[in-house]
């Protein structure tokens, strides 16, 4: 898949098959060859106003077609920080 950060607020977004952006990983266009990945990245990069810094990132396809982040970095981007945000008082 191709992911980036939305320009106006920096939120994590994923390139969809409909040439748009979504905040849901499950909406992302999944490609399986490097040619397809390069093409998806080129198309995403052309949208410089919508999102910043697009790059190709791995996903895992689970049984039933569920899409999971392919590494820890993408897991953190998708699910948020791994720590309790509240400072203990």
């Amino acid at each position, binding site marked *: 898949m191709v992911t980036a*950060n939305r*320009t*106006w*607020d*920096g*939120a*994590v977004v994923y390139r969809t098959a409909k040439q748009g952006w979504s905040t849901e990983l499950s909406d992302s266009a999944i490609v399986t060859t490097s040619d397809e990945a390069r093409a998806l990245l080129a198309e995403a990069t052309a949208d*410089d*106003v919508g999102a*910043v*810094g697009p790059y190709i990132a791995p996903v895992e396809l689970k049984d039933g077609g569920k899409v999971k982040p392919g*590494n*820890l*970095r993408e897991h*953190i*981007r998708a699910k*948020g*920080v*791994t*720590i*309790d*945000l*509240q*400072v*203990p*008082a």
Partner: protein
Amino acid sequence: MYAYDELDRTLINERVSEFRDQVKRRLSGELTEDEFKILRLQNGVYLQLHAYMFRVAIPYGTLSSKQLRRFAHVARRYDRGYGHFTTRQNIQFNWIKLAELPDALADLAEVGIHAMQTSGNNMRNVTSDQWAGVAPGEIEDPRIWSELIRQHTTLHPEFSFLPRKFKIAITAAEHDRAAIKIHDIGLRLHKNADGETGFEVLVGGGLGRTPFIAKTIKPFVSGRDILSYIEAILRVYNQYGRRDNIYKARIKILVHELGIEKFAKEVDEEWKAMGDVGLTLDHTAIEEVRSRFSYPAYEKLPHMPDELKQAAHDKLFERWRKNSVSAHKVQGYSIVTLSLKPVGGPPGDATAEQMDAVADLADKYSFGEIRVGHEQNLALPHVAKRDLPALFKALDRLGLATPNVNLVTDIIACPGLDYCSLANARSIPIAQELTRRFANHDTADLIGRLHINISGCINACGHHHVGHIGILGVEKNGEEFYQITIGGRADENAQLGTLIGPAVPYAEVADVIEDIVEAYLALRDRPEELFVDTVKRLGVEPIRERVYATR
């Protein structure tokens, strides 16, 4: 406190208007990201994993209560209710929206706060001792000089596009709390044989991929010449510093490749060739800046007030007092460090509620002034000793009285992979786990002074190279691993730590650190021998043997 003049206020307000226009043009597509990136970086705006990150300068670590309240407002209004104090006297907001950044900047500008040069290849926030102006035995207040350098270098056209970022730190005390030896330029105020105040100038320090401890380039430069001498250093760097390779672009690489003698010769030649370029600071110019710093009207107070005697039976208070309260240059007053390292908390984070409450306490007990140190803690610099018991109770309620300053749980940590787009591994959860392992304050006291520094990547924002124990996150085959060094230090005897053994996986880091501490306790020759001194006396090997024997 330093009072900005009309010029400063105009500059900051103009900068807000300029940035507002740049953001507007970016969001409309008039500016591409490539065009906008350098502009946002010049205003402290990074793009991190989840959002934009906004880094705001706290020049020489001095804040008014009004300014701290404004940080709380920004955290609450534009972010997620907290901020992160960094190792360079900045605060970072991790969840800010680009579209709202100009408003946040405008709100900060109203109280004289800005984000200029908190990122980008320019002169960064000039840092200093968080105890400046109140530390006993200090030569003079180093913030006067920090401010003079700040004024000279802010938006300086020659220094706005340096080969790489450039950091200066200044200390005027015998004990270096500003970590000057790991800065591009470190300045140590002292007096020469004639009693004149000037600087020992060190150059070429820095951490990151290729760490170096700064070397002395000139033992004494008088105060009146310091701007021109710094200018000469920067001109040599600007001329010879590498722009072709980001990993070799810092001045430390140039100093290392030329050698300190050759580099010093180049600087001296440049300094002479510059002649009189109007940078000599006369008495009037120095006094003008000095006069804009205001100092509290201290009362004449007893060394040991009744309130302190009466509170001495309270064990919790006494533990905190011994750990977090330091001597002040004025009798009857103390410097109080507020630990931002609660057990289980992210190091350096403070909630908006805590910031507001600290601002109130500063007004009540510290003449409205707060300090920020590179160890990611706060300080109240002017607390009457009679007020210490009441202050302790208030801080304890806020979770800001953890008696762990300079102890094993007073951990410096970068944001790591939880936030940072450069990181390879997480830092904060490692720090949190270590604070839980060493949560017993009796154990921490028994261990004594021990600085653990954690970085989530080789860029070393967590200063791991100079931690007594340094932890560096790396990535191996998609997994988080951590290299551990021991024996580093960031003070006047600064040195880099030595790798103790193979990198260990995330789940084993806390066990290894516990084993290192146990080895130290077994090997130290007396309770007063600090961890770093035991490593210096014995070397790494005896500790390595104990820790890695069964691994």
